[in-house]
C-alpha cells in the first residue's frame, strides 16, 4: 500500500464491505431473534454482542495488548495469563469472504477467505486491533494465509501443530512449540509468565467451562433452548470478555433451569433432534441452524471447533508450577482435540457417537464448506461409522453465499421427514 | 579367677566344713559329640541340632541306620515337626565335660514346658551317646529340665540341668514378637531356679553377642535369692565366679575370647558357655526314706554368644557408601538434566563405519 491509488481502493473496499457486513449481520440477527417468538431473556446479552460496533470503539482496553488466534489450538490460558486480551478471529461473514477472494484462490474454503478478508480490512470481531496473530499450522489453507503477511499487513506467528496427536513425539513437539510461543508472547506483551497469573487464568477458563458444561447438561435434560442460540453463545466466547460471558451464561442457565422446572420447551417431543458437525458454523453463517430450526427440528449438539470442541475439554494440573501448568495447558489443545487436521482422528467418531447417545439425537447433519478438504475427507468415514450404529446421516455442502438455500431447504426437509417417520414407527412398535 | 574361687571355697568351708565331695554337674549341651557330628544338622538362628532324617537315597548308610531307629522308611517323606536334640554332659568345664548316659535305673525327672506353660513330651534316648529328644511347636521360649537327686551323708544333692530353648522361625512370621520378653519359671518343678532376664527391647531375633551384658536371677520358690554362687565357664576355658546380689541378680558381660582374621570370621559362630549355680540350703527333708539336713542345689544352664557386630559390621563404611552413592546419583541427575537442556541433539549417528 505504497501509493495513493491503492490506499483509496482499500478504503473504498473497506467502506462497501462494512456496509454489506452490517446489513448481513442485522439480517441474520433479526432472523435469529424475530423469527422465533419464544425468547429467552438471558439471550439478549449474547445477541447484543453481535451487533455492529461503531468504527472508533473497541471491546478491548487500549492499555492491554490484543492477541488474535486463528484456530482453537492456541492456548488462550497463556494469553490471558500474560495480561493480554484474546480474540479468535475466524469469520463467518459472506461480505468479508468476497473481500478475501480478491487475493486468494476462488476454490478455497469460505471460512479462510472470509477470515483473510476480515484481517485485511480490519473488520475483526469487537473491532480488535491485534498486536499479533497466532496462526497454528492446522489446515493447509489457514497455514498459507500466514505467508501473506505483506499483503494482509499484519504480523503472524506460526504456532507449529504436529500432524498427529497420539505419539509421544508429537506431544513433546507440541509442548516445545507451546513453550516457544510463550517466549514470543512474553516479548510481545512485555510481561513475564508467572505461576500465579497462569493459575488464575486456568481457573478463570475452568470457571467458564464449568458454566458451559452446566449449560450443556441443561440442554441435554430438555429442549429448552434452540441450537442457534447455543451456537451464538459459544460464538461470543471467541471475542467476549471472559468474565462477563461466564456471568451472562450463568444467568441464562438459571433461566433454563426455571424453564425445565416449568416444562417450558421450545419444541414438541416429536421434533427431530439433530446433531450438527463438520465445518464450523460461525456467526453470521448460521444457515444450517436456522434452516433446521425453522423447519421444526432442533439442534441438540454441535460438534464444531466453534462450540463444544473449544470449551468442553479441561485442564488438570498436578503441581501448580509452570513446569507442569504449561504442558497441562498445551495438552488440552492437543490430546482431546478432534480437529480433522490430526491423523488418525478416531476420537471424533467416538465423541459424536457418545453425543448421539447422551443427547438422544435422531440424526446427524454433516456440513462441509466448499473447498474444506479435511472435513470433506472425514465425512465418508464418519458417515459410515454412524450408519453402522444405526443413525441417519445427511451430508450437506454449503458456501457462505446465502442465496443457494433453496436446494438445502428441500434436502433438510426430506431428511427431517424421514426422521419423523422413523420416530413414529418406533413409537408404534413400543 | 583363683582368688574369687578361694574366697568362695573358704566361705563354703566356714559354713559346711564337711562338704568336701566336689559334685560334677550334669548339663544340657547343644554341641554334638564328635561321633554324631555327621548325623546331625543344625538349623535356625540358634543352631539347634536335629537328627538328619534319612532320605530314601541315604537310608542304607550305616550312620543313618544307627541313630534313626524310628519308622525310618515311612517318615522319610512324611514330615512332622522336627525333633530337636540336646546332649547330656557332665563336668565343670566345657572343654573337659564328657557326654554321659544315665543308667536306666537312675532316678530322674525330665520335663519340657512350652511357652504357654503346658507340659510337652520330651524323651531320653539311650544309645552310645545319650540325648533328649523333643519338638518345638509353639513360638517362644521352651524350658527343659532334667532333675535328679542323690543323697550323700546328710546332704541331698539336687542337680537341675536347665535349658531355655527359643523356638522361632521367621518363616512362620513375626506376629508374636512382643511375647519374647516375659520369662517363665516353674516353682512346681523345681523350687530353685535361675532365669535369664530379658533385655528391654528383646525380641525373638535376639542372640547374645560379645559385649552384651546378661543378667541372671536366682529364685527360690519364685522369690529372689541372694548369695547364690554362680560360675560361668566358656568354651576356651575362661571362667568367672560371683554371688547374686540382694535382688538375686548376677550380671556378666560376655567378651569374645578368640580372635581371627576377618576373612575367617564367622558371624554366625556360637561360643558356648556353661553356667553353674550352687546353693546349699539347710532344710530337713526326707528322700527315699532317708532324712537329710541340707539340700545342695546345683543348677546348670548352657547357651552361647556370637561375635560382636562391630567385629564384622561397619557403620562408618555404610555411611561412606551411602553418601558416595547419593553424591553420584545427584551428580548423575544433574548431568542428565544439563544435557537435556540442549534440545534437538538427542539423535546421534555412528559415523565410524564409512
Amino acid at each position, binding site marked *: 500500500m505504497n501509493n495513493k491509488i491503492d490506499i483509496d481502493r482499500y478504503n473504498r473496499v473497506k467502506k462497501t464491505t462494512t456496509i454489506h457486513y452490517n446489513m448481513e449481520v442485522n439480517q441474520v440477527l433479526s432472523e435469529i431473534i424475530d423469527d422465533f417468538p419464544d425468547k429467552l431473556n438471558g439471550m439478549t446479552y449474547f445477541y447484543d454482542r453481535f451487533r455492529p460496533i461503531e468504527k472508533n470503539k473497541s471491546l478491548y482496553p487500549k492499555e492491554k495488548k490484543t492477541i488474535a488466534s486463528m484456530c482453537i489450538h492456541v492456548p488462550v490460558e497463556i494469553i490471558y495469563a500474560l495480561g493480554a486480551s484474546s480474540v479468535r478471529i475466524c469469520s463467518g461473514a459472506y461480505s468479508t469472504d468476497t473481500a478475501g477472494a480478491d487475493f486468494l484462490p476462488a476454490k478455497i474454503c469460505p471460512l479462510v477467505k472470509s477470515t483473510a478478508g476480515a484481517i485485511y480490512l480490519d473488520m475483526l470481531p469487537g473491532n480488535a486491533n491485534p498486536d499479533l496473530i497466532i496462526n497454528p499450522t492446522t489446515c493447509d489453507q489457514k497455514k498459507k494465509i500466514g505467508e501473506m503477511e505483506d499483503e494482509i499487513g499484519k504480523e503472524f506467528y506460526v504456532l507449529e501443530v504436529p500432524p498427529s496427536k497420539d505419539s509421544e513425539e508429537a506431544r513433546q513437539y507440541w509442548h516445545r512449540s507451546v513453550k516457544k510461543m510463550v517466549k514470543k508472547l512474553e516479548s510481545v506483551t512485555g510481561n513475564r509468565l508467572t505461576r500465579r497469573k497462569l493459575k488464575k487464568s486456568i481457573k478463570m477458563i475452568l470457571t467458564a467451562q464449568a458454566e458451559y*458444561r452446566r449449560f450443556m447438561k441443561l440442554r441435554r435434560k430438555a429442549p429448552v433452548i434452540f441450537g442457534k442460540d447455543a451456537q451464538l453463545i459459544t460464538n461470543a466466547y471467541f471475542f467476549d470478555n471472559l468474565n462477563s460471558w461466564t456471568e451472562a451464561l450463568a444467568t441464562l442457565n438459571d433461566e433454563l433451569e426455571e424453564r425445565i422446572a416449568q416444562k417450558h420447551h421450545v419444541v414438541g417431543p416429536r421434533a427431530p433432534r439433530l446433531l450438527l458437525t463438520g465445518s464450523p458454523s460461525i456467526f453470521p453463517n448460521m444457515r444450517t441452524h436456522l434452516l433446521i430450526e425453522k423447519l421444526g427440528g432442533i439442534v441438540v449438539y454441535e460438534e464444531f471447533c466453534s462450540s463444544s470442541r473449544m470449551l468442553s475439554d479441561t485442564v488438570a494440573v498436578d503441581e501448580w508450577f509452570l513446569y507442569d501448568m504449561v504442558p497441562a495447558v498445551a495438552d488440552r489443545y492437543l490430546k482431546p482435540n478432534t480437529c480433522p487436521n490430526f491423523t488418525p482422528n478416531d476420537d471424533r467418531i467416538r465423541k459424536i457417537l457418545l453425543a448421539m447417545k447422551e443427547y438422544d439425537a435422531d440424526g446427524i447433519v454433516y456440513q462441509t464448506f466448499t473447498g474444506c478438504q479435511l472435513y470433506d475427507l472425514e465425512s465418508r468415514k464418519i458417515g459410515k461409522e454412524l450408519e453402522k450404529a444405526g443413525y441417519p446421516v445427511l451430508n450437506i455442502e454449503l458456501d457462505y453465499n446465502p442465496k443457494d438455500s433453496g436446494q438445502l431447504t428441500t434436502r433438510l426437509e426430506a431428511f427431517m421427514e424421514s426422521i419423523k417417520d422413523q420416530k413414529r414407527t418406533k413409537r408404534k412398535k413400543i | 579367677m583363683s582368688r574369687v574361687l578361694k574366697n568362695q571355697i573358704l566361705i563354703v568351708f566356714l559354713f559346711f566344713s564337711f562338704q568336701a565331695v566336689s559334685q560334677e554337674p550334669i548339663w544340657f549341651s547343644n554341641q554334638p559329640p564328635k561321633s554324631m557330628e555327621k548325623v546331625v544338622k543344625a538349623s535356625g538362628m540358634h543352631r539347634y541340632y536335629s537328627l538328619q532324617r534319612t532320605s530314601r537315597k541315604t537310608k542304607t548308610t550305616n550312620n543313618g541306620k544307627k541313630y534313626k531307629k524310628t519308622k525310618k522308611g515311612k517318615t522319610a517323606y512324611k514330615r512332622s515337626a522336627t525333633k530337636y536334640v540336646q546332649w547330656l554332659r557332665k563336668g565343670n568345664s566345657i572343654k573337659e565335660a564328657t557326654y554321659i548316659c544315665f543308667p536306666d535305673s537312675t532316678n530322674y525327672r525330665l520335663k519340657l514346658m512350652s511357652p504357654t506353660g503346658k507340659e510337652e513330651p520330651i524323651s531320653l534316648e539311650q544309645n552310645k551317646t545319650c540325648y533328649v529328644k523333643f519338638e518345638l511347636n509353639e513360638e517362644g521360649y521352651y524350658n527343659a529340665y532334667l532333675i535328679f537327686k542323690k543323697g550323700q551323708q546328710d546332704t541331698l544333692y539336687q542337680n537341675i540341668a536347665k535349658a531355655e530353648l527359643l523356638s522361632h522361625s521367621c*518363616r512362620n512370621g513375626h506376629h508374636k514378637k512382643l511375647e519374647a520378653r516375659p520369662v517363665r519359671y516353674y516353682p512346681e518343678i523345681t523350687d530353685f531356679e535361675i532365669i535369664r532376664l530379658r533385655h528391654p527391647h528383646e525380641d525373638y531375633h535376639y542372640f547374645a553377642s560379645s559385649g552384651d551384658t546378661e543378667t541372671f536371677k536366682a529364685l527360690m520358690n519364685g522369690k529372689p535369692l541372694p548369695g547364690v554362687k554362680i560360675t560361668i565357664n566358656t568354651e576356651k576355658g575362661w571362667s568367672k565366679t560371683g554371688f547374686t546380689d540382694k535382688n538375686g541378680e548376677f550380671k556378666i558381660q560376655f567378651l569374645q575370647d578368640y580372635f581371627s582374621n576377618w576373612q575367617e570370621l564367622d558371624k554366625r559362630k556360637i561360643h558356648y558357655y556353661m553356667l553353674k549355680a550352687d546353693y546349699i540350703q539347710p532344710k530337713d527333708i526326707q528322700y527315699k526314706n532317708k532324712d537329710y539336713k541340707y539340700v545342695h542345689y546345683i543348677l546348670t544352664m548352657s547357651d552361647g554368644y556370637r561375635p560382636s557386630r562391630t567385629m564384622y559390621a561397619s557403620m562408618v563404611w555404610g555411611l561412606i557408601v551411602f553418601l558416595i552413592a547419593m553424591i553420584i546419583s545427584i551428580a548423575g541427575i544433574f548431568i542428565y538434566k544439563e544435557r537435556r537442556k540442549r534440545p534437538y541433539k538427542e539423535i546421534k549417528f555412528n559415523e565410524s563405519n564409512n
Partner: protein
Amino acid sequence: MKKINIKKYINNANVSRFRFWIQLISFFIFVYGGYFFIEIGSRLPIFSCPYVPGSPGGCYLLGVQHELNSTWHTIFSPRGISILKSLGIFLLFFIFLNKAWCGFVCPLGTLQDWITRLRKSLGFSFTRYDEMSFKRLKVIKYILLALLILIPLAINNSFFGLPKLSHSMHTPFCKICPARTILPLFNGDTSQIYIDFTDTTTIILTSLGLMVAALFLVGSFVKKRFFCFFCPMSALQFLFSKIGLLRLIKNGDKCTRCGNCSRVCDVGITEIADDILSKNIIKDDCMMCLKCVEACPEEGALKVKVLNFDIFSATEEGFFKRYGGTSKFETSNKDDVLNSNKNKDE
C-alpha cells in the same frame, strides 16, 4: 434422595486430601504401631518392614523369601502347605484394597509422597520417563520378583547342576530393599546402615542396599513414586489384581483421551488415558491413588468399584470442585446448596 446426596458428596470429595491423612495414620501404625501393642500379622502386602523395631507386622516379601529358603523336598511335602497358607493370608489382605495398599497404606510409598511434597515446597520440577525408558524399566520389578523367589531356592537346591548359592544370600531382596535401611530411622534405629564384612557376598549385598537407599532418596526427590516403579511387591500384587474387590473401571466410550488422568498420575501411566478398550484399567504400576478419577471431568468415565457398587466416580461437578473451584461456579449451582441444606435439616 439422601443416598444420592451421599454419593454426590463422595464424588465431590477431595480424595487426595483424604488419602494424605489415611497415609499419615497408616504410616504411624506401620512404623510405630508395635510400640502400642498392635499386631497385624506378617503377610502384609505392603512394606511393613520387620526390621523396623516398632513395626506391627511383616512384609510378605520377607515371608516368601524365608519360606522358599528350603529344599524341593520340603516344599513338596506337607510342610509346603504352609507356603500356600501364607500366600492365602497375603491374598486375603490383598483383595480388600487391591493395589490401593500401595497408594494408601504402604509406609515406603507414603515416605516417597512426603519427599515429593518437600520437592514441591522447594519448587523443583519433577521428571518423567520417556515412553521408551518407561517400557524398558518397568520390567525390572518382575526381574526382582523372579530373583527373590529363585535365589532362596538356589541356596538349598542346585539348579541344572550349578553349585548352590551361599547362605549369605538369604532374603536377598531385604538386603537391598530401601525400607530396611530407611524406615528404621523413623524409630531412631540406625543399626541397619552398615556394611557386613563377613564375606564378599554380604559386603556386596549390604553396599548395594545402601546404594539403593541413597538412590531411593535422590530418585524420589526428582521422580514421583520413584521406587514403586521397581517394587517387586507391586509386581506380585499385579499378578493377583484381577481378583481384587476394589477395582478401577474405565468406560472407554466416555473417554475423550484428554490425558488429564495420565498427567496427574504419579507413576506416569499413559494407558489410563489412551486405552479405550479395557474395562479394568489397573496396570502393574498403578497404586490406586485415585488421582486419575479426581482429574477426570467426564461423567462416569472412570469409576472405583467394590464388587459392583460404585464408590467413587468421576463427575463434572466433582472435577470443577477440585480443580476450578471458584466462587462463581459454586454460587451458580443454587440447587446443590439447597439440597445440602435440606439434608442437614433432616
